[in-house]
């Protein structure tokens, strides 16, 4: 991707007004995109009482209370005789009225219409929700499983896809082009058509309810990553191969010592994509992993929600933790990420 942004109106033609309108629309859209994230974080740090606020405030606030005779009573900013004072509401009275007292002098009560007073609120965040929710959903176990699936699968993918991409980019052989087109056509194959017998196969092997069905197939290459790596390998000058060949290197050595070091950006790119894919994958972990000790984060989080949906704060806290690694990765490797999407489209 080139860095120069080019407007559809042409570089010189776009007027100031058009730019201003564009910026305004983009800003409005950006707010719409960011609000769900804000809602996620604010819900994650609310306690039960705060969750019951409807409509939910985007900043987690709670009613400020004061202790009157051993009871926590909500504090209000009230106006009496033109004077604004902070008072606690100790009792509701019929007709929308309430009994208010000055915390400094709780003996004297004032009966006032509640609707006319403003409740005092303060920002209140319960960060203990994070460790608590992670403990409840047995996060550590899920994380270990997810990391195993992700990184062992990544190793298998990098290993097999490098070999296959090298085979497709550097050699001539009968039918090789046909095989390459066949490989690409598998991108368009709906996965369901091969899913059930694959399940039956893993079931026969006794691998259902283990992590193996999620890891082992990665050692047999996949169309997206082979395609991306092959496209990159093609840009590496053939002279390098020839030089290695003259020095007596075998094709395997050429791949290991010439091609792969040159292809580092592409390898990083497919590795990142694989991470995102494996981290977010839900369908296959759902069908293959039955017992909780084998679940990945995606399955664990879904089940956590199915069982404890009322604890929205915990669910959101766990969700926030789950989306954190992809987001960090995205910020660290944004350029690689966007270039990779251009090559392959998003996987999965």
């Amino acid at each position, binding site marked *: 991707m080139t860095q120069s942004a080019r407007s559809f109106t042409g570089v010189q033609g776009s007027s100031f007004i058009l730019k201003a309108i564009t910026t305004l629309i*983009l800003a409005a859209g950006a707010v719409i995109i960011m609000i769900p994230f804000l809602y996620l974080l604010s819900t994650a740090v609310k306690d039960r009482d705060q969750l019951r606020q409807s409509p939910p405030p985007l900043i987690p606030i709670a009613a400020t209370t004061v202790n009157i005779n051993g009871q926590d009573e909500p504090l209000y900013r009230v106006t009496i005789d033109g004077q604004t004072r902070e008072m606690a509401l100790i009792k509701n009275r019929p007709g929308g009225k309430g009994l208010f007292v000055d915390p400094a002098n709780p003996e004297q009560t004032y009966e006032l219409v509640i609707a006319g007073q403003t409740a005092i609120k303060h920002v209140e965040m319960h960060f203990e929700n994070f460790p608590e929710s992670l403990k409840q959903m047995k996060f550590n176990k899920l994380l270990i499983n997810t990391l195993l699936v992700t990184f062992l699968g990544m190793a298998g993918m990098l290993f097999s896809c490098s070999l296959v991409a090298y085979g497709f980019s550097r050699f001539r052989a009968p039918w090789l082009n046909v095989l390459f087109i066949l490989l690409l056509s598998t991108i*368009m194959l709906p996965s369901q*058509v*091969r899913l059930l017998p694959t399940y039956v196969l893993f079931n026969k092997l006794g691998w259902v309810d283990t992590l193996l069905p999620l890891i082992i197939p990665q050692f047999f290459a996949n169309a997206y990553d082979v395609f991306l790596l092959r496209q990159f390998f093609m840009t590496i000058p053939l002279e390098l191969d020839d030089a290695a060949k003259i020095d007596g290197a075998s094709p395997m050595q050429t791949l290991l010592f010439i091609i792969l070091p040159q292809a580092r950006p592409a390898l990083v790119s497919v590795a990142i994509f694989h991470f995102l894919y494996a981290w977010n994958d839900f369908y296959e972990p759902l069908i293959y992993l039955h017992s909780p000790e084998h679940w990945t984060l995606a399955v664990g989080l879904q089940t956590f929600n199915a069982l404890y949906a009322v604890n929205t704060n915990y669910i959101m806290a766990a969700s*926030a933790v789950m989306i954190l690694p992809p987001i960090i990765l995205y910020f660290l490797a944004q350029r690689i990420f966007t270039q990779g999407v251009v090559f392959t489209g998003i996987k999965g």
Partner: protein
Amino acid sequence: MNSSPRIGLARRESLWAYAFISPWILGFIIFTIGPMLASLFFSFTEYNIVDSPRWIGLTNYINLFRDELFWHSLGITFKYAIIALPLGLVFSYFIAVLLNQKITGINIWRTIYFLPSVIAGVAVALLWGRIFDPKFGILNPFLEQFGIKGPGWLADPQWAVPALVIMSLWSVGGNVIIYLAGLQGVPTELYDAAKVDGATAWQRFRHVTLPMTTPVIFYNLILGLIGTFQYFTEVYVLTNGTGNPARSTLFYNLYLYQNAFRYFHMGYASTMAWVLFLIVLVFTLLIFRSSDAWVYYEGQLRGR
């Protein structure tokens, strides 16, 4: 010239090629073509995994076409596709055009717009489930600001699919990136030539930008179509795999999952998988066929 060592070299080169691609060939046999044939076979059998498959001929196919839920789930999937696909394509194209402008801070805007596309999956579905909640969510209070009384969204059979469409629009970032690359690939000379001819901004967009980016639109359309027919995670998470309320979100793939892994009707589910495969194939071919009429291949120009 001596030809035999040449043949030997060529043969050796072929052997190396096949050796290097052998992981994929093996994988293709074990995990693609083998299972495809097996599921075709299963589709003519009654099979519950425990007992061996029993040949029942076309019974599954006949039952499928009589199965109301099959038509129902197909209908929902089409309904979603008809709304979400064009909307997503137009929406992401529009954003890509905006993100292609030369304005200050464009990289920050791009970062924000691409962000949701990296976090697809369970967490996002759970988040949107809360956002749509009529009482404790934030969407309806937001709509109320404009005097609109929001529906029950995921709790309302009428509004559950539209809610899923809205959710999908939030993460169109992946499409936007691809469009953006397409837009940046349009040669500047074309704009210059159009300007010399006195074309307005709209005419330049309509007659230069749009035709030049049709291959990218085509690419996103095909992948979007395939993705739509595989739609699963979001709806499974939001309905705990039920497809409720009132089966209004029983997508094709979800119904297939239920048959396969809830009721263990592997034969019937295989029939569904093959019918799905054929549907996707027909639509893909139709789009490919139509592409002659509307997709402009840059190679024709670049090949000079």
